[in-house]
């Protein structure tokens, strides 16, 4: 079953829509769902042109397709557990929060908090992701625990903060403080990163671009050849300031002990 939601043109396009109800499972019982526009409760049909193709009895067989200007639609796919969501443009904040299964594909850019506190499933973003991509929430000590997030563009600051499990792969570069407070999981950055992995406790972070302002609290333990990437990386352990046992593999830093 395909559910196509095409965002209608709004008088106030900047007003955010809170749409945690847009997950495949909810469409098993029809399309009579509620969302918030600003502080007003609206029906889904008030804001989207809805068309449904085919039928399904399980959420796994449902694909939700969002078209039009969805850059201010927040919390799409929150607590999603199965099925697929495809977003043809940009998506607003908090897409895929707490998601535990299924796929989300974003053809445009994602705003902040993409895949926050995710537990399972797969998110693929073709454009750039905002700050706090695949991170924890403010004040919490546990971030993403499982699943996979892949961003083909760049990610903002605090990407994979408190990463506890699962895999995050950024094909472009990350902003400041990538992988800070990491406790597990695997984090791959193909591009550059600034001050990565501060206070890291465990897990693996690989950075194939340039690390700017490498923290001095990582201990160099050797080098390693990665044949599939045809590079040799320097391996660090840390963050020693916090008795961390994390592994950071870096292709190039400004440090003299490389």
């Amino acid at each position: 079953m395909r559910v196509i939601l095409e965002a209608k043109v709004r008088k106030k396009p900047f007003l955010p829509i809170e749409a945690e109800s847009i997950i495949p499972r909810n469409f098993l019982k029809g399309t009579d769902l509620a969302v918030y526009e600003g502080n007003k409760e609206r029906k889904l049909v008030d804001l989207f042109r809805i068309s449904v193709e085919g039928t399904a009895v399980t959420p796994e067989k449902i694909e939700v397709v969002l078209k039009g200007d969805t850059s201010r639609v927040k919390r799409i796919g929150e607590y999603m557990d199965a099925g697929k969501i495809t977003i043809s443009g940009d998506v607003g904040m908090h897409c895929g929060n707490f998601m535990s299964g299924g796929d989300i594909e974003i053809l445009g850019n994602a705003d902040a908090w993409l895949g926050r506190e995710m537990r399972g499933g797969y998110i693929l973003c073709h454009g750039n992701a905002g700050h706090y991509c695949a991170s924890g929430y403010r004040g919490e000590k546990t971030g993403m625990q499982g699943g996979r997030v892949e961003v083909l563009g760049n990610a903002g600051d605090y990407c994979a903060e408190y990463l506890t499990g699962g895999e995050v792969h950024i094909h472009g570069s990350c902003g400041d403080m990538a992988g800070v407070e990491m406790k597990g999981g695997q984090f791959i950055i193909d591009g550059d990163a600034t001050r990565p992995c501060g206070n890291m406790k465990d897990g693996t972070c690989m950075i194939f671009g340039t690390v700017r302002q490498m923290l001095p609290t990582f201990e160099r333990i050797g080098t390693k050849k990665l044949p599939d990437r045809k590079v040799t990386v320097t391996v660090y352990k840390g963050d020693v300031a916090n008795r961390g046992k994390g592994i950071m593999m870096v292709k190039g830093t400004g440090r003299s002990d490389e």
Partner: protein
Amino acid sequence: MTELLIRNACVFDPLNGIRGDVMDIAIRDGRIVESVQNNADVIDASGFLTLPGGIDSHSHVCGTKVNFGRYMSPEDMRAGRTARRGKMHVTSGYYVPTTYGNSYRYSTMGYTTVLEGAMAPLEARHTHEEFNATPLQDMLANTLFDGNWSIMEAVHAQDVKRAAAIVAWTLSSVRGFAIKLTNPGGTEAWGWGGDLTGIRDPVPNFNVTPAEIITTMIEANELLHLPHSVHLHCNNLGKPGNYATTLETFGLVPDLNKNRQTLYATHVQFHAYGGSTWRDICSKADEITKSVNAKPQIVMDMGQIMFGRTMTMTADGPMEFNLYCLHHNKWSNHDVELETGSGIIPVLYSKKSLVNCVMWAIGLELALLTKNPYQCLLATDNPNGAPFVKYPEIIGLLMSKRYRDEECATLHDGIDQRTSISSIDREMDWNEIAIITRAGQARALGIAAQGKGHLAPGAEADLAIYPIRCDDVDPATEYRKVVEGFQKTRFTIKRGRVVARDGDVIVDGANTTFWVNPTIPDEHNVANDPEFVKKFEEYYTVRMSNYPVQDVYLPRGRCIKTEADI
């Protein structure tokens, strides 16, 4: 003139010796009266349990320290969210909720008066501002004197009158209610990176001991005739083996006041540990209660912990650092110039942790082994032991042996060797619950004379009507009904007005802040003392003239005047 008549109330009013009589209560203009006219508004209590408004004699709900707890835990604001509804503001938070969250939850539980456990004098304005945003409870502020330099110098000079004069000036300046000593001397030592290991250790640079500070302040308190006694958080909080310090401290206390206790020892659960390390910690509640049972001059509160996540916050900076070393979680520490300090960390009390299970048992043992319920009051040191919303569960535990046994069965096995909780059969009755939640607090805080905590004609018309029929419910077996009943009042009445009904707050509310102003002869007034003024000018970051809290911060302040014997 507004009049209200409450019919068919099953009243427990321990201070007036009323035990479960079904009677009518007449209210005129916010006070209890003998009778009202026939056209008065009527509320039918339909035989439900009716008590004077609840009083919390030690809770941290307002002030800089509580607010820093909010800064530190944005994740807590994800819990307890309620939308705006009727007169109710938006609230959020579980263990450090917004001020309105605190006020609404207290009110729906029938609480009408709350004492903020620790206000740093220098930061009093913040506390009073938050008092104004806690509109459904009358507020009182314990004022910290544990590391006050001028006080310690007066103690060193063995000058009780000077200590009393400094207390009087400070309390009236910051609109405080009582003297609070938190780890006396220890927080000052922490300013130099140290702590004190007992009440005979000298405070660095001042050459006084906690024992001297405590005894001098007790005498100063009685010279000033303050309504409340000295309110003490003993030294060595939360250290295995600290019961010896607590007993030694209790041994210092003379019996100086015939109307109330001479020392209020707060959250004693945290001060009743035996053993020498966390591995062999055990309960010494029996020793503590033996001492308290023999000393009518001491009143304590339980400081009960309940399992779950919460935040510890106290002026006891060194203790919080020790806790941080155990948990390696977030930690904040704060120094208040010449006065005190504080520390804050979040904690999780777990049933899997033997230490936490022992702590849980100690609090209950203290309440159950203290013979006179007026001497051990119900409090969790909110939010340190547990958020105050857990009070109904504690009431259930105290009233039902079966509930305690069922809880014990879910705890760590070691609890039977380390504590005696499973051998205690006592089950409290309704009257005792009324004492440990309101009457005892009113007497201990000395505010029964202000019309708090009882229902005699002339008293403030603060009442809580709980949906419990005392005759039909057997608390020993139907403890669930007791817990649910105490969670939501049928009606909470504050100053003669229904403020909460069935869990909903229905008015904006306007509270009163009580503060004391002891009158001191001019020759003893420290404001005229060049040495005291000089200390201010040399060391404080504020001018002495800017230090006192202006009246605008207390739109509904009520001053309790006392005459000092100096």
